[in-house]
């Protein structure tokens, strides 16, 4: 199907886009990648009166490090993140998640910032950005503000973005210690949403954990940050008895629903299993994980 009629605006400057947003307020939806919005519009689950296409806006496709942060412009596609040297060198969790989102065709258009703004409970980037303590930069005619991702993702498809605001950038802190990161995702088939997704981010110094971040998707009304599990990891370090505690705390942090992808109990079990695997890998052991092995063999450019 195709959507009902809408007004289509394609501003050519950010100022123009912000003006349009302040005029249209809640009537307009921003279109960037469109890989979540357009499918919803085709099925008529969403019928915005106006679309503000931001794909022509200059200056939003930057991906660079500055002042101790990685800065990801709103128009940086997942494909760009996969190909980025700086991400591959210093942001292992982002390198791990990017190729696991949807499929190569969708990754060519979809964006990190768009994923956060769409705020699907099964969104992969939300889990990752929670683990990495990221933030979103939002602009409006009134000015600019920075919002911690933990304060940005409120509920299913609900963010704290105001109707007149445009998310222009996402930022994560640059690693100071020795970074480790892995994203484990179970999907029923390629391109499916996650049954469960687990993002683990660590800054290590030997066995001791200076910083830990654990984010989940598919286990609640929005992405979940496992604060207690993170604290246990920092307190205890990478030891076997700590791993079990951390996995249990993370599994308890989510509130999964039973649905076509599995029972709540199965999803909690998945969180536990993925946490154990991630931490075993961090400890230098290589547990058998067919999916992770595949990523090692593929020269994934898409």
């Amino acid at each position, binding site marked *: 199907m*195709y*959507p009902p009629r809408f*007004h289509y605006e394609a501003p050519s400057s950010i100022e123009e886009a912000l003006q349009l947003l302040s005029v249209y307020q809640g009537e307009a939806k921003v279109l960037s990648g469109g*890989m979540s919005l*357009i499918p919803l519009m085709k099925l008529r689950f969403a019928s915005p009166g106006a679309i503000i296409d931001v794909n022509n806006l200059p200056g939003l496709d930057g991906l660079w490090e500055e002042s101790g942060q990685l800065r990801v412009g709103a128009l940086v596609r997942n494909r760009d993140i996969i190909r980025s040297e700086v991400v591959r060198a210093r942001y292992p969790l982002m390198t791990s998640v990017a190729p696991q989102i949807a499929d190569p*065709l*969708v990754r*060519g258009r979809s964006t990190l910032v768009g994923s956060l703004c769409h705020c699907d409970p099964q969104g992969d980037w939300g889990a990752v950005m929670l683990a990495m303590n990221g933030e979103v930069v939002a602009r409006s005619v009134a000015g600019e503000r920075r919002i911690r991702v933990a304060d940005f993702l409120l509920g299913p498809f609900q963010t704290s973005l105001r109707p007149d605001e445009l998310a222009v950038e996402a930022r994560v802190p640059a690693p100071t210690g020795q970074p480790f990161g892995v994203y484990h995702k179970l999907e029923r088939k390629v391109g499916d949403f996650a049954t469960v997704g687990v993002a683990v981010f660590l800054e290590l110094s030997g066995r001791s954990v200076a910083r830990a971040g654990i984010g989940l998707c598919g286990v609640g009304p929005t992405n979940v940050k496992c604060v207690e599990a993170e604290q246990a990891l920092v307190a205890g370090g990478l030891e076997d008895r700590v791993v079990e505690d951390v996995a249990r705390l993370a599994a308890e942090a989510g509130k999964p629903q039973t649905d076509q992808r599995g029972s709540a109990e199965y999803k909690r079990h998945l969180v536990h299993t993925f946490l154990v695997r991630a931490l075993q890998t961090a400890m230098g052991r290589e547990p058998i994980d067919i999916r992770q092995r595949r990523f090692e063999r593929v020269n994934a*450019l898409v």
Partner: protein
Amino acid sequence: MEVKQITVTVNGEPRIVEVEPRILCVHMIREILGLTGTHLGCDTTSCGACTVLLDGVPVKSCTLFGVQTDGHELTTVEGLGWPSELHPVQEGFKEEHGLQCGFCTPGMMLTSAALLEDNPDPSEEDIRWAISGNLCRCTGYQNIIKSVQWAAKKMAAERTAATA
């Protein structure tokens, strides 16, 4: 009815198109431009039968509005090659029996052509990965892989001949 006028380069030729914003790129390609090699397979952005190249990058044209192509380059299967001058990927699909019903084939070939631009010597794993957004119900993918490998070899040979 709000109609936009856009200019899009289709298979190398600039075209001026008048289209309602809500019209999907795949419908613009098939019904306004008359290029029916691009197919509609699923309605859920799942199958990749609608794959075209937007500025050389494979995208699902069912999940793009036609108006978004304004100022851009679109390549459909009709732009890949013709019976008189087949693209190596098309030749490969012919030589290695890479299709049965042919419904997924235009999308498969465009994705494969883009892969070979990027990665002229892909492993089998690389090929399987690159086409993982294009579903085929007939072949089990075996001969599709072989077709792409055939094309890679042909293109490498052509490059060697050109520099000799």
